[in-house]
């Protein structure tokens, strides 16, 4: 379970003067869903291409399933599926014909190929459209076909570059559901995205990329803790807000910030789940609690706050 399937040490890629990836250390274990986050041009796609041996690293080492993608690209690519951001198919061929081509390139025998293709089409729900030309497919269908294309090689690792970009919210949710299914089958998934709430919904761990470096890494809670300070945000509504109440909340051990949101609402940021303490404090201060609910830390906020801080730092440095 704890086997390391993806590992990079000091991985660097330079295009002339431009450093696309800068000394990246990344470790992903079997069965994990790892999210690469970051703005465009942060080095996510370059990292992915190096993991697959599609571009050579300038420096550093990569190990994928214990193999070096530069020296043993065939073994790596036979066991790792890649769903590129720019996903294209042969438009004049049907979905099934496109998959047959992939199966042949993987050296699958005919019966085995046909069996796996049927399975994959079944799994991603494209059975009815299987014999229609891809030119008639919608964006969502193409994305699902791309996943079927990856599944027929029965990969141990699937790497997805911006898998939900440009999809309808409904289709995107279905797609995330499929990712959860894959995770349940012990398939390791590395996905890059800038659609944060979706990443948050499926990823075990995330890494935040900024200018070729992975600046933050960990679970969403850990990241929130680091960047936002308080990772738990408790919203309360009281009947008569007053100063004493606010002070009482602030004095609680573990509370980072108390902010008045509305005439009757407060936001309490805390380092741990303090719903019970907050409720007691309100009661003890003589207030009447009308509602209390806790919001899980959101990656969007982590992301926004991180880059805000970054800009402030950059500004002061200049």
């Amino acid at each position: 379970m704890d086997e390391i399937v993806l590992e990079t040490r000091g991985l660097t890629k330079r295009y002339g003067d431009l450093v696309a990836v800068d000394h990246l250390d990344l470790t992903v274990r079997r069965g994990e869903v790892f999210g690469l986050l970051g703005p465009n041009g942060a080095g996510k796609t370059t990292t992915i291409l190096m993991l697959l041996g599609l571009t050579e690293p300038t420096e550093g080492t990569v190990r994928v399933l214990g193999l070096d993608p530069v020296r043993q690209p065939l073994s790596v690519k036979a066991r790792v599926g890649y769903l590129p951001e720019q996903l294209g198919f042969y438009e004049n061929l049907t979905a099934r014909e496109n998959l047959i081509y992939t199966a042949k390139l993987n050296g699958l025998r005919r019966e085995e190929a046909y069996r796996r293709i049927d399975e994959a089409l079944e799994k991603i729900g494209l059975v009815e459209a299987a014999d229609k030309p891809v030119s008639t497919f919608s964006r969502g269908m193409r994305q699902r076909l791309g996943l079927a294309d990856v599944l027929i090689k029965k990969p141990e690792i699937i790497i997805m570059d911006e898998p939900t970009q440009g999809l309808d919210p409904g289709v995107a949710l279905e797609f995330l559901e499929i990712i959860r299914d894959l995770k349940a089958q012990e398939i390791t998934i590395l996905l890059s995205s800038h659609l944060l709430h979706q990443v948050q919904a499926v990823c075990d761990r995330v890494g935040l990329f900024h200018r070729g470096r992975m600046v933050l890494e960990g679970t969403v809670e850990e990241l929130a803790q680091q960047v936002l300070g308080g990772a738990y945000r408790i919203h309360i509504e009281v009947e008569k807000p007053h100063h004493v109440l606010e002070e009482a909340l602030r004095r609680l051990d573990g509370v980072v910030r108390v902010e008045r949101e509305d005439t009757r609402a407060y936001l309490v940021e805390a380092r741990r789940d303090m719903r019970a303490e907050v409720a007691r404090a309100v009661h003890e201060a003589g207030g009447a609690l009308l509602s209390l609910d806790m919001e899980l830390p959101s990656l969007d906020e982590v992301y926004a706050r991180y880059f805000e801080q970054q800009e402030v730092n950059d500004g002061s440095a200049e």
Partner: protein
Amino acid sequence: MAARSEEMARVSAREGSPWTGMWAVVWKEMADNLTSVRMSILETLTVLTAIGTVYSAAQNLRSSGRDPFLFLRLFTTGREPLPAFVGFLGFLVPLIAIALAFDAINGEFNRRTISRLLSQPIYRDALLLGKFLAGLFTLALVLSTIWLIIVGLGIVTLGVPPSGEEVARLLWFLLVVIFYGGIWLSVATLFSILFRQPATAALASIAVWLFFAIFWGMIADLLTQVLAPVRVGYLEEIVRQVRLNLALSRISPNTLYVDAVLALLNPNIRSLGLVLPVQLEGAILGTPLPLDQSVLLIWPHITGLIAATILIFALGYVLFQRREIRA
């Protein structure tokens, strides 16, 4: 230096065969080629040309009486204003070859299939060579079909079957035509790697072909005048000039094709170069050369065509290996 040798070791230590998956590429591309609209158009055009020229050649030949190589004349006889079938092939073959390959690689980039394709367990070698071979096989298939049609038409219109030697000569001719197509196939493949837009690649290929088909002859003449002028009029001077002109004109694949085809289909041609009276001593003029002598005559042409194909393909190969996948 150390980094370099490490790099070399890395390349040589590449696992598995570079041709893994190549046949999958070949079959897929051939199926695409043979079902594409552009191929149907060109095939129709070629078949119509074949029927038209062979028909008019047969009309001419009927009145020409006995000729031991009547069948070969089917390919080389034209009737004004139409050129002979081999003349038509001289520009139809490059056209077909260019049409087959001008979007070989940039098409994959534009369809965005390249990264999906290369993330399969194959090397780039397999993709490039697979595409080239598919083009060559398609060309061979189309040309062989037309070849058979013409031979069939010939039997019907002339009323005589071809002799064994004629068939052998025609088979060699077919081979030369396919190799001639191979050059243009590799030129178009090279441009499909070089240029992102298929239209640019197609135009560049056609430009190169036009350059050699039309302008190279003039340029060769001009260069000859400059490099080997005849000042006094000695025999050596004249011989030197003619030799240089021949050598220059043979840089063009079109010249190689025309020379080779003429020597094969016209057994009376004894030399493709300059013949001095001394060399003719003892020769019986007007007798045809045996096949092996004709083949010997054009052997440099055939090897030249193949060498040029390999050279251009190799250049494309190097460029493609270095190409970054992300657009």
